C-alpha cells in the first residue's frame, strides 16, 4: 500500500454517507459465520415452534398438517374459558404460586442473615454447602425421597405424628395437605441456593460501616437492622419483583412427579393440564391454546416487571 492508495481510500470512505450493508457483513464475515450457526439453531428450535402456535387457532389434524387443518379462530379459547376444568387449573396455579411466594421468598433472606452472624468460617461453609445439596437433584429423585419420608405407614414424619396420638397424615394423597407439602418441599429444595445471592450481597457491604456502628454503641441486632438490611434492600426488591413476575409460572417438574389423581383438584396447574390434554389426550390444538394463554401472560408480566426493575435501579434482566 502506498500513500496515494491510502489517501484515496480515506477520501472515499469519508465521502460515503452510509456504509454499504453487504460490505459491513463481509468485513465481519468470520464473526457472522460463527453467529449464523447459533442463529440457525434458534430459528429451527425456537422460532419455528413459535410459528406452530398457529395450531391453537386451528382444529389441528396430524394427517392434514398445519396448513391444511381447518381454521377455527378463538374457539379453543372459548372452550377453555367456559370449562370448569380450566378455571380450577388457573386458580390452582395462582394460589400455589402465591403460597410459594409468601413462604419461599423470606426464607433465603433469613438464612443469609443468620449465616452472616456465624463467626466460625468452617461451620458456616459446611452448613452452606449442605443447604444447597437439594438444588442439584432432580424432582424425580426428590419425589422418591419424600415418598419415603412422608409415607403414612413407615415414614419418620408420620411416626412422630402417630406417637403424639394423631392419625397419620397422607401428605401426598390428601388434598387438604398437598399444597402445603408442595410449598414445604419447595422451600427445602431452594432455600440454600437462593440464599447465595443474598450472602454475596451481604459480603459486599463495607465493613467500616459495621465498625462505625459498633463504636457508636450499636449491638448486632441493631447493626443488622440499620446496616445489613438497608444495604441489601435493592437486591431484595429486585428478587421480589422478579418472583412476582413469574406468578403464572409453575414448577412442572415438582408437581408432575409428586401429584396423583387424588389431588388433581388442588394441584393440577396450567402446565400439567396442558401436558395431559396435549400429549396424553392428544388434543393438540386445545393444549397449544392453553400453553399460549400462559405464555402470553407470562411474557407480559416479564415486560412489566423488567420495566419496574430497570426504573428502580440500574439492573435489568439484560
Amino acid at each position, binding site marked *: 500500500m502506498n500513500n496515494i492508495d491510502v489517501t484515496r481510500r480515506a477520501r472515499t470512505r469519508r465521502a460515503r454517507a452510509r456504509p454499504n450493508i453487504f460490505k459491513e457483513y463481509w468485513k465481519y464475515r468470520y464473526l457472522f459465520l460463527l453467529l449464523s450457526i447459533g442463529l440457525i439453531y434458534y430459528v429451527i428450535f425456537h422460532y*419455528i415452534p*413459535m410459528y406452530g402456535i398457529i395450531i391453537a387457532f386451528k382444529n389441528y389434524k396430524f394427517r392434514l398438517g398445519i396448513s391444511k387443518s381447518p381454521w377455527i379462530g378463538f374457539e379453543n379459547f372459548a372452550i377453555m374459558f367456559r370449562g370448569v376444568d380450566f378455571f380450577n387449573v388457573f386458580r390452582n396455579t395462582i394460589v400455589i404460586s402465591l403460597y410459594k411466594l409468601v413462604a419461599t421468598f423470606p426464607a433465603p433472606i433469613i438464612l443469609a442473615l443468620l449465616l452472616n452472624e456465624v463467626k466460625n468460617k468452617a461451620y458456616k461453609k459446611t452448613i452452606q454447602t449442605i443447604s444447597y445439596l437439594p438444588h442439584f437433584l432432580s424432582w424425580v429423585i426428590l419425589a422418591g425421597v419424600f415418598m419415603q*419420608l412422608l409415607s403414612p405407614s413407615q415414614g419418620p414424619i408420620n411416626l412422630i405424628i402417630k406417637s403424639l396420638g394423631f392419625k397419620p397424615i397422607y401428605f401426598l394423597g390428601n388434598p387438604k395437605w398437598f399444597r402445603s407439602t408442595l410449598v414445604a418441599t419447595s422451600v427445602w429444595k431452594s432455600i440454600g441456593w437462593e440464599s447465595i445471592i443474598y450472602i454475596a450481597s451481604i459480603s459486599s457491604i463495607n465493613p467500616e460501616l459495621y465498625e462505625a456502628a459498633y463504636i457508636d454503641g450499636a449491638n448486632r441486632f441493631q447493626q443488622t437492622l440499620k446496616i445489613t438490611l438497608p444495604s441489601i434492600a435493592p437486591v431484595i426488591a429486585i428478587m421480589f419483583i422478579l418472583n412476582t413476575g413469574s406468578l403464572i409460572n409453575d414448577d412442572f417438574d415438582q408437581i408432575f412427579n409428586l401429584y396423583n389423581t387424588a389431588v388433581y383438584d388442588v394441584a393440577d396447574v396450567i402446565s400439567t393440564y396442558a401436558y395431559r390434554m396435549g400429549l396424553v389426550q392428544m388434543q393438540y390444538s386445545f393444549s397449544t391454546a392453553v400453553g399460549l394463554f400462559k405464555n402470553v401472560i407470562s411474557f407480559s408480566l416479564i415486560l412489566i416487571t423488567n420495566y419496574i426493575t430497570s426504573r428502580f435501579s440500574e439492573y435489568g434482566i439484560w
Partner: protein
Amino acid sequence: MRRSKGERVFDVFNYILLGFLGFCTLYPFLNVLNISLSTPADVAKIGLRILPLNPNFEGYKKIMENTYLLTGYKNTIIRTILGTAVNVFLSAMVAYPLSKKYLPNRNIWISMIIFTMFFSGGLIPSYLLIQKLKLTNTIWSLILPGAISTFNMIIVRNYFMSLPAELEESARIDGANDIRILFSIILPISAPIIATIALWSAVGHWNAWFDALIYITNEKLMVLQVILRKMIVEGSMQYIESTGGSFVYEDGFKPTPDIIKCAAIMVSSLPIIMVYPFVQKYFIQGIMIGSLKG
C-alpha cells in the same frame, strides 16, 4: 469484640438453628439410605434411627444387576458428555460475535436471542417439530432442542466483554482471523467461565427427564432419570424387578420394592452428591457473573 450475654445466647441459638437446618436437609436422604440398607422386616422398624439395624446389601446387589438401570446410566453418561460439549461449543461460538460492540446490527441479534428466553411456542409445537424432524427415539432429541442455553451464553458473552481488547488486537496484527482468535486465544483464557457453564450444563443434562420421557419410547435409549421415574413414581414392577442374573434369597431377605427403590435413589444421586461440594465455587461465580448487566 466483646459479646454481651444476650448476644452469646443468640449465637448458641443460631448455631443450633443452622445445625437443625443442615440436619433437615440431610435427614430425608439418610432415611432413604437407611431403608436401602435394611432387611424387609426392619423397614417398618426404622423410625427415626440414623443407622440401619442390620445392614443388608441385597437391595444394592439387585440394583447393580438391574438391566434398565445400567442402560439408563450409560445413556445418561453419553447424553451428558455429548450435550455438555455441544452446549459449551455452541454457546462460546455465539457469545463471541455478540461480545463485539462493533458487530453490525448487534442489538437486533441479541434481542432476537433473548426474546426466546421469555416466550416460546410451547410444549405441543416443540413436540410436533421433533416428530416432523424424525428425531424421536434418538439422542439428538435430547441434545439439539437445548443446544444453546441463552442464559449460559449471555454469561459467556459478558465474560468475553470483560477481556482486554489488546488480546484481539495483537492477534489481528499477526494476521489471525476471528475464528482463530476465538479458538486459539480467547477460549484458553476463558477456562473459568467455560468450566462454569460446562458444569451447569452437565448437571442439567444429568437431571433431565421430561424430554427423554416424551421423545424416547425405546427402552434401550432411556436415560437414568426416566428409568428412575418408572421405578419410583410410577412404581412399575417390571422396571424394579428386572435383573440380569438370577437371585436366590434366604427367607426374609428378598428386598422389597421399597428397598430396591431406595437403593436406586442412592446409586443415582451419589455422583452428584460427591462432586458438587468440590465444584460449588464455579456455580456460585456463575450466578455472580450472570446477574451483572452486560
